[in-house]
């Protein structure tokens, strides 16, 4: 329910959704008009309509990685398709860099996709009759870039995703993980500002998935794209996201940072997801630390503010005094005690974390 704005104050959002609805069915539009913005999924279903997205509003800022998390049928992929306009939203407004894409004609839309958007698909959706290199160069070729230029760019992408030497392979000759690397390279070849990923790692084995997630984090640390990432895997969301939107039956139940979602689940549904989450693997020191008190006697040790608890837990637990938390510049920003760590790890679920998450 909570549709908070992004915490970092920045200028215009790259993507803005304003009361977006997507309802499938013949008389969806007239039903929605009558409903006056209050959509009851059960009522609509009785009338033969299926609610895909129900009143979604949020902003995504430049360089931010927003993950939409939900189980199958929650409308997460539908929301992504509304924003990329692979499907038309039934009502609402969607702005990409301030422009309303629902008002765009086909030509403008193609222009937008050729220059600003890239998308990765769950089942890779590679063209079976083209080689790795041709697949990657495909968006450039349809755009009309010269063959020489597009091959050069595609080769760079091949190197970027670590497929060097396999340029002439066909998709069927590659493993699932490799195929998705091609999909990623294809989506990045036009150097888009906005990157959509629709369950990109769901069709992969757990080990490969972990590897691809690392690869993805590496790429993002280099590229700094604005990303909308869809997944049904809560652990994946926690691992990767700047912010997470949890969807159920087309409604965004909660949209917040991973730490806040784990510490303060907004609804019962969200709480169920967070219950089993090992907090030390998710929470960063800064989200559980206490305020820095210069008068207190501190240990000589310091820990960085932005690491997950797990990595420094041993140090803190072995220290008899509180440990200083420092920011990137080495300035003390907080303190953490062994007792606090024990409380986070083994305390009851009603743990109230401090609210000073960044």
């Amino acid at each position, binding site marked *: 329910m909570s549709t908070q704005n992004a915490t970092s104050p920045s200028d215009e959002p790259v993507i803005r959704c304003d009361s977006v609805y997507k309802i499938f069915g013949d008389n969806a539009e007239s039903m929605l008009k009558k409903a006056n913005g209050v959509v009851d999924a059960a009522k609509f279903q009785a009338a033969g309509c299926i609610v895909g997205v129900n009143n979604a509003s949020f902003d995504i800022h430049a360089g931010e990685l927003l993950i939409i998390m939900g189980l199958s049928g929650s409308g997460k992929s539908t929301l992504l*398709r509304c924003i*990329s306009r*692979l499907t038309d939203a039934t009502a609402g407004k969607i702005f990409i860099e301030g422009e309303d894409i629902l008002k765009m004609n*086909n030509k403008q839309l*193609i*222009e937008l*996709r*050729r*220059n600003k*958007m*890239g*998308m990765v*698909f*769950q*089942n890779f*959706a*590679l*063209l*079976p*009759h083209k080689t790795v290199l041709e697949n990657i160069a*495909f*968006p450039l070729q*349809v*755009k009309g870039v010269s063959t020489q230029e597009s091959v050069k760019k595609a080769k760079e992408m091949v190197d970027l995703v670590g497929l060097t030497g396999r340029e*002439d392979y*066909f998709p*069927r000759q590659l493993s699932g993980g490799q195929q998705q690397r091609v*999909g990623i390279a*294809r*989506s990045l070849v*036009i150097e888009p500002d906005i990157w*959509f990923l629709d369950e990109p790692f769901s069709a992969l084995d757990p080990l490969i998935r972990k590897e691809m997630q690392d690869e993805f984090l590496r790429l993002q640390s280099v590229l700094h794209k604005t990303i909308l990432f869809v997944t049904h895997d809560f652990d994946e969301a926690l691992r990767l996201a700047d912010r997470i939107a949890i969807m159920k039956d087309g409604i965004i139940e909660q949209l917040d940072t991973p730490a806040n979602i784990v510490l303060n689940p907004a609804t019962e549904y969200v709480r169920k997801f967070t219950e089993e989450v090992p907090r030390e693997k998710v929470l960063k020191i800064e989200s559980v630390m206490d305020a820095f008190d210069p008068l207190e006697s501190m240990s000589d040790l310091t820990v960085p503010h932005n690491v997950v608890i797990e990595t420094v837990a041993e140090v803190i637990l072995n220290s008899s005094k509180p440990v200083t938390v420092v920011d990137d510049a080495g300035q003390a920003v907080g303190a953490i005690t062994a007792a606090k760590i024990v409380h986070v790890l083994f305390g009851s679920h009603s743990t109230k974390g401090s609210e000073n998450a960044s």
Partner: protein
Amino acid sequence: MIELFKQKKSLQFILLLVIFYLLNHFIVPAESNILWRLPPLLKWFPLYINDSIGYLMFEWWPVEVYDPDIEEFEQKPLVSQFTRIISGFILFQIEFIREIMLGGAKTIVTFSSWDWATANPWARMPGLPWTVIAGGATILGYALAGRGLALLVGFSMTYISVFGQWEPAMQTLSFVLVAAPVSVFIGLILGIWAFRSKTVEAVLNPLLNMAQIIPHFSYLIPVMVFFGIGDHAGAIATVIFATPPMVRLTLLGLKKLGPEVAESGMMSGCTNWQLLTNVLVPTARRDILIGVNQVIMQCLAMVVLASLIGAKGLGIDLLIALNRLDIGKATEIGICIVLIAIVLDRMSLAWANKQTDYFSSLSFIEKHKYSLVFAALFMIALGLAYVGQFIFPEGFNYLYIVPHNKGMSIAIYLQSGVDWIWDTYFFALKVFNEWLILSVLLPVKAAYLGMPVIATFTLFMGIGFIVGGLRVALTVGALLLFIALTQWWDRALITAYLMSVSVLVSGIIGITVGTLCAQNARSTRFILTYCDTFQTFPSFIYLIPVMMLFGITDTAVVIAIIVYASIPALRYTVEGLLSVPETLQDAGTMSGVNRVQRWLTIELPMSFPHIALGLNQTVVFALSMVIIGAMIGTDDLGQLILGSLSDRNGVGNGLILGICVACIGLAIDQILRTWANQRKQALGLN
């Protein structure tokens, strides 16, 4: 009691049969009795069609056309001008290909005149030596699928040449080479259009259903009226018949892709055209090429029938041989047709399954090795043909072409073999023949003809109602009503009798033999190969052996239908049984079923929806064969259609008769398909 009746379908069927029997018993057979036979209220319809087509062709919208013969402008009706242009265009292509293979002057005449062509004999197309074509086809076979296919192609081409059938075979091939690409092109466009627009799909669907079930003969008549007689007319009729499967498979292939492929193309920034040509069609390549394969098979199935409206080639020879009861000759030609069919089938399938496998580092020779080998072969073959002039100084140069019927022949031996069979088994064959006709066929026929129209309607609409409710009952009723209102109800009953007897036997054979063969992997493979091979035989071929054994009788027709129609029954049974999920089999095993129990309680119920679709195909196959059976003398709808081919005003009759046949097929299709779909849903298949 009523509740029980509502739930138990078997009780409903019993009641239906009782009513059917009572109606049969009590309705008085009299022409005036409307419950016995409906009056032919649609009798005017064929005449109306004749008049409309006549008007359309010869009067509607006259246009000024320049006539070079009388050097003046003349008033000619638009439609006939239009069809003449199409005819000329297609005929030119056929002649052109034909003359590349066989030589001739018609191509050059098109651009000049007969006088000029006679005066300048050097301009005549020389024609390729048969060795070039045979060798080229063999190389192509090797390039597509390696040594096996190359051997098959080489053997087939050599057989055709050595047996003196080269000329008609090339005539047939030239006609297929024009008809097939045209069908593929039209089918591809319609299929894509149907994929893009739901409306087009909704319009095309019933038309496609109809087109595939209307007998081949019926196409011939309107084509003849619009386009005249000749190779082009045969090609056009073939195109009409061969296009529907192409549309179907294109649509199927595109639909199967799933949304992600199209979405990935759109997100890559494709325009609609780029999406279609760069993404969708290449990705659906395999299904589309299987469509091409189907088109080629349909073209060959039409070879014999197209000869009825003037297509040259193997078909007309086969027809003549059959009419003369020259079984030896007919077999020889039949083998040629079958060989061409198998070769083209295997080649197009190999093409469909071939994955383009190129790595950019190939040398020039490796890249072009097949072209180079062909070039070498071309030179060698020309040299051989030249040398041949000296080896065979008199008569024919066999290294250039083996003239028609001047090759080897085993017709005499085949004929004497047939005669020997007749002499040896005459008594047995005769007894079987007479028994079948007197004790089975005639009584069944009498029973069908003795059925009051109200009883037929009650039975079929009743089955429709029990199976699929009011909608199906009304559809079936409407289809039957159309037949009942023409003057050919009795003939339709005869068609139905021939079909149902054969379908019953085919179904039993298909299900039992199919089940037995599905027991182990080797026999499964064997039976599927059998089906693949026999399915490529043009239906006409089946008439040759049965005529040999049973002469011109209903027995011959029925047996031909049974052999032909049991192919889909067999195939679908085997495929249905194989598709039963492994886990279910394991669950059965762990519950301790024995072989028979497994078959009865797991395999058969699970695969029955699929088998029902096979029976549906069996009906379609049987109907098409019943009609072709007219060639050896039946007295059903087919015979009338055949008759209207030689009737000046046969269009209306032929069309309506064709639609009658289609109505029978569609009524049964409606019931079986509804039932199969319901079962599928109930079993959670799909």
